[in-house]
């Protein structure tokens, strides 16, 4: 194991699935979206776009292999923890920037190509917007009541920690490295004993906001199959809201165990195993859902395909999707929208409330990370 740090092994375990997911993203997006550009149903299979998809996939995988090789070469086990984190950041950021550039090239080329297609005139001239009035009566998410257990667990952990305050050691471990060794510790106080409880509460807030983004995001109707696309979308939203509640619960459990770890007398190894199991479950779960459902539910097969469901004309909204990634529409009161390239939801950058929520989430996540 001389050449490999434990951290490398773990990170590779995380990177490989993430790289694969990135490479296969064009297959997960809606049938009507190609690199952030709206195209008619069926066009995505045509050779021009198929070539772009293949190129993007191969470049993502190739860059991914370089990324992993770079980690082996540049990150030496004898280097300091700080060196390691700098190298990891540099490698990961360059990977993200490079794959983004690969995406942008395809996005711009397909956007230009679209304007020369025979179907362009009729699709682009339409400014029609179609919505299903009954959509919000469907059960698109689970109830928020499912987040009550999360809150109860945190409350119990806080109560238990305060009651057993004197059993905590005088120096509390605050940071671990990948091998489970303590790298930073602080003096004991009520505040520091409950650090992870505060963090749990912050995480629960982030999960609830994400839940609301699923419930509130704009409906998307595919012009060729209005009824079916919405049916698939209900399953898509519901499944992700279930996953989110479970993932949130696991994260809370992890933090609570972390807070109580000085009392549990578990070996650092046991604890690392639990951390990686939970991270693994969340990672695998999200990959499984992404692949099985596709963006917006587009990879689902409808059980009751009502054929003869009339196609409708729908505006492509391309002019509001900057680079095919950022939805900017000042006239739209929507805060949350479904992503075009990728799986999940994003915000309407034209809406000040959306900015406030994003800044709020960043503050919730970053402030504890900086000050605790």
């Amino acid at each position: 194991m001389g050449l490999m740090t434990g951290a490398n092994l773990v990170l590779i375990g995380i990177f490989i699935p993430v790289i694969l997911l990135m490479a296969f993203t064009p297959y997960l997006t809606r049938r009507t979206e190609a690199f952030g550009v709206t195209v008619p149903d069926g066009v995505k299979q045509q050779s021009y776009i198929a070539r772009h998809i293949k190129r993007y996939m191969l470049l993502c995988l190739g860059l991914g292999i370089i990324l992993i090789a770079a980690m082996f070469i540049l990150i030496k086990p004898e280097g300091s923890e700080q060196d390691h984190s700098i190298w990891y950041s540099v490698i990961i950021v360059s990977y993200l920037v490079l794959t983004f550039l690969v995406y942008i090239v395809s996005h711009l080329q397909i956007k230009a190509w679209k304007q020369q297609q025979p179907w362009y005139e009729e699709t682009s001239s339409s400014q029609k917007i179609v919505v299903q009035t009954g959509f919000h009566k469907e059960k698109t998410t689970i109830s928020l009541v499912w987040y009550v257990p999360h809150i109860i667990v945190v409350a119990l952990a806080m109560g238990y920690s305060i009651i057993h305050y004197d059993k905590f050691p005088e120096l509390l471990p605050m940071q671990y490295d990948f091998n489970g060794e303590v790298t930073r510790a602080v003096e004991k106080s009520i505040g520091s004993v409950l650090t992870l409880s505060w963090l749990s509460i912050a995480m629960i807030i982030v999960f609830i906001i994400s839940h609301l983004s699923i419930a509130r995001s704009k409906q998307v109707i595919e012009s060729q199959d209005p009824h079916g696309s919405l049916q698939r979308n209900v399953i898509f939203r519901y499944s992700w809201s279930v996953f989110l509640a479970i993932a949130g619960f696991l994260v809370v459990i992890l933090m609570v165990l972390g807070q109580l770890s000085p009392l549990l007398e578990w070996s650092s190894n046991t604890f690392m195993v639990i951390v990686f199991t939970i991270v693994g479950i969340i990672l695998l779960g999200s990959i499984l859902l992404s692949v099985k459902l596709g963006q917006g539910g587009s990879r689902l097969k409808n059980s009751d395909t009502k054929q003869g469901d009339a196609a409708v004309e729908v505006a492509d909204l391309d002019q509001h999707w900057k680079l095919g990634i950022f939805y900017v529409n000042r006239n739209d009161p929507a805060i949350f929208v479904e992503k075009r390239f990728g799986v999940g939801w994003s915000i309407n950058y034209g809406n000040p409330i959306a900015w406030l929520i994003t800044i709020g989430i960043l503050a919730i996540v970053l402030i504890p990370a900086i000050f605790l």
Partner: protein
Amino acid sequence: MLLSIDLQSETPIYTQIAESIIEGIARGELAKGEGLPSVRALAVDLGVNLHTVNKAYQLLKQEGYVQINRKQGVVIEPNAFPKADELFKRRQAERMKPIIAEAICRGMTQEQIRELFYEVHESLQPRQQ
């Protein structure tokens, strides 16, 4: 029902929303007492201002097609819609005037105009399952 608006049309959006909902009622796609999306939800889905949707709902309420309750939100009038009384008929006649006038200018006969009316009426009948 599928509610459709056209951002390029000269007809104001709130009018389009209201007319689309009345069409849905005529076709039987919206049942009496059926709930409509909240102002916010419909505005978000359509990508239009909240006031626009609110105006459409107020218009529908004025005409007696929906009820706006605090609890259930906006629902299609559960009881009878207002009768087509003399006043209503006179107003409709007034609204038809420019439509028929235009048709006459273009040389349509009464028979042809009548046919067109039948056609539109037919298209607003409940769809057969």
